[in-house]
């Protein structure tokens, strides 16, 4: 049986306090769960359901709707790289190829050391500084293949 860490439980209570009804807090709690457990497994969905008085099917239904909630294991650093018009025009595809070369895995796969996974995403709202990608909470902008290699190298030693 899985459980939030002590810190997670504290954050969970804080999230609840922002909403008039416990059930309304489902999305931020799922985000918290993803931080705690890495991805929303069926076990996690069931745990959240019990915690928030939802049938597990409802939790999974919400989780499967949002692409930023992982439904299968992701790396410690998950890279979301934008492939929409601005980024595309500013040369994101060579950057994507560089990610692939650096990590040696296809999108939505996890590297053998469990450190990385990546996916392409729709617009990150950073068109002025395209191409852009997001790793965890952080944005990396004005990408070039060289810069991508640099960032990955840095994260690898993190």
């Amino acid at each position, binding site marked *: 049986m899985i459980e939030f860490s002590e810190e997670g439980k504290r954050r969970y209570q804080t999230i609840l306090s922002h909403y008039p009804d416990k059930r309304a807090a489902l999305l931020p709690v799922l985000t918290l769960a993803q931080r705690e457990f890495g991805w929303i497994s069926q076990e996690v969905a069931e745990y959240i359901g019990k915690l928030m008085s939802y*049938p597990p099917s409802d939790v999974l*239904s919400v989780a499967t*709707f949002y692409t930023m909630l992982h439904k299968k294991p992701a790396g410690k650093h998950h890279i979301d790289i934008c492939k929409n018009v601005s980024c595309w025009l500013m040369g994101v595809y060579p950057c994507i190829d560089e990610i692939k070369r650096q990590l040696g895995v296809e999108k939505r796969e996890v590297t053998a050391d469990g450190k990385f996974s990546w996916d392409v995403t729709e617009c990150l709202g950073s068109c002025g500084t395209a191409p852009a990608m997001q790793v965890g909470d952080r944005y990396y902008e004005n990408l070039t293949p060289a810069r991508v290699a640099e960032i990955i190298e840095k994260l690898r030693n993190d």
Partner: protein
Amino acid sequence: MPKFTLNGQEVEAKPGQTIIQAAADHGMEIPHYCYHPDLPIDGNCRMCLVEVEKMPKLTPACTTLVNDGMVVRSENERVKEAVRGVLEFLLINHPVDCPVCDQAGECRLQDYYMVYGLHTSEIPLGMKVRKRKVIDLGPMVVLDQERCVLCSRCIRFFEYVTETGEMQFFGRGDHVAIGTFEDRPLDNPYSGNVVDICPVGALTSRDFRFKCRVWFLHATDSVCGGCSTGCTVRIDHRDGTIFRLLPRRNVEVNRSWLCDEGRLSFHKLSDGERITRPLVKGRDGVQAPVTWEEAARSIDSRLKEIRDTNGAASILGFASPSATNEALFLFKRYLDGLGATQFDFRLDSEDKKLADEEDQILRHFDKHPNSMGAIKLGLMSEQVGGIEGAINAARAGRLKAGVVIYFKPLVERPGDAEAEGRVLALLDELEYSVLLTSHKADWQDSASVVLPVAAWSEEEGTYTNFEGRVQLAGKAIEVEGNALPVWEVFAMLLHASGAESPWMSAEDVFATMADSVSVFSGITLDQTRLPGVVVG
């Protein structure tokens, strides 16, 4: 009462009704998938789009309330064009596997395609989004995600009717599919209902799947014999075999629902051998077949003999709470004629304690369809005190003879074997016993006479549910062998005893009952059809 114009005709609606409901009340079906009269309104399928004058766009008839003076059109070209478009969208990823789909013949996709669609699909087969098929969802339901139109009726059923929330949408976009968490089986006593309300072939019945094409089935209106809620049902049958039970909508009793136990209860009828001829025990103590006339004469003379030697109080009438009102009425009339005073029907005093099989939706703890009818007809006496009292009285020699009606319950529960054991004990203690029953069992050797009678679904008759609602159940299939409906057996016995016996049908018996039993007075058989009539 708001008045509005529907396709050029001025009609009245009840306050608070939506267009689709008001139209249905006037016999006009507006096409729909997600709308269901007994579920909360969702408005997701867009099939019920209609034109309302002064509204800029077409509007869904299921979510739009009727207003006074509204002008609604549901059959003009603009509406038809829109509905055709919606239907084409719904069919984009549909596998069109009708030849092997169990829903064929009662599928809303097929029906509406013939009325509104008739288009050629522009999606090449290879481009359709494939989803999972033949997913096992427990004892009642099989899921095919490709056929689903995502109307969410099943999801809303589990959310609002059973409040258990087993089913949900998963995924997004054109990959959305319905399902249960981890494909868990639907462990819910009402899960069979989602098969009925599924407008397409996505949810099919594990029990009925591939048994028969629906257009070969004949339907008979009936009442479920599984418990004393008396849900209004339809029996679908062919060539003397019942294939399935479906709920008939009755707002006063079961709305559109039926529990799984009740839905499968008809299988009990084909479980075990039937008795086909009347059997009378000879001097050698062996039951031998006789004709009905011989049986009736022998029973009547023997009962009168016992009455004359031991008094009328030594004759017991032990009824079955599964027999029809008509059966119980003539049963009592015949025994009253003999002067009998000892009546009961309670098979076990434990009945009330088995409350765990009951819930707030439909299922009632009393697994007999007509206990209330037996009570209203005066067949319960504290003097006898249930079957245990009767056994004790017979053992003490106060009861000598008994006429016993016994039907195996259609819904099994713990304690059935004990109840049957008590019937055997009663037969054993009585000097002379007449048993009316439908199915063979070895313990029946103890009875002096065994009479084969029609089981549930084999005769027309009325049942009175726990709240006193009298409902008519039709005859779906023929009785086996020489068996007769219980009321006919007693009509025959009344005739043998020299009393008047003018009844030709259950309807005749009902009319006599309405004349002579005050609780039923003034009711005609016609009034016991949907939704039934509550007696005092």
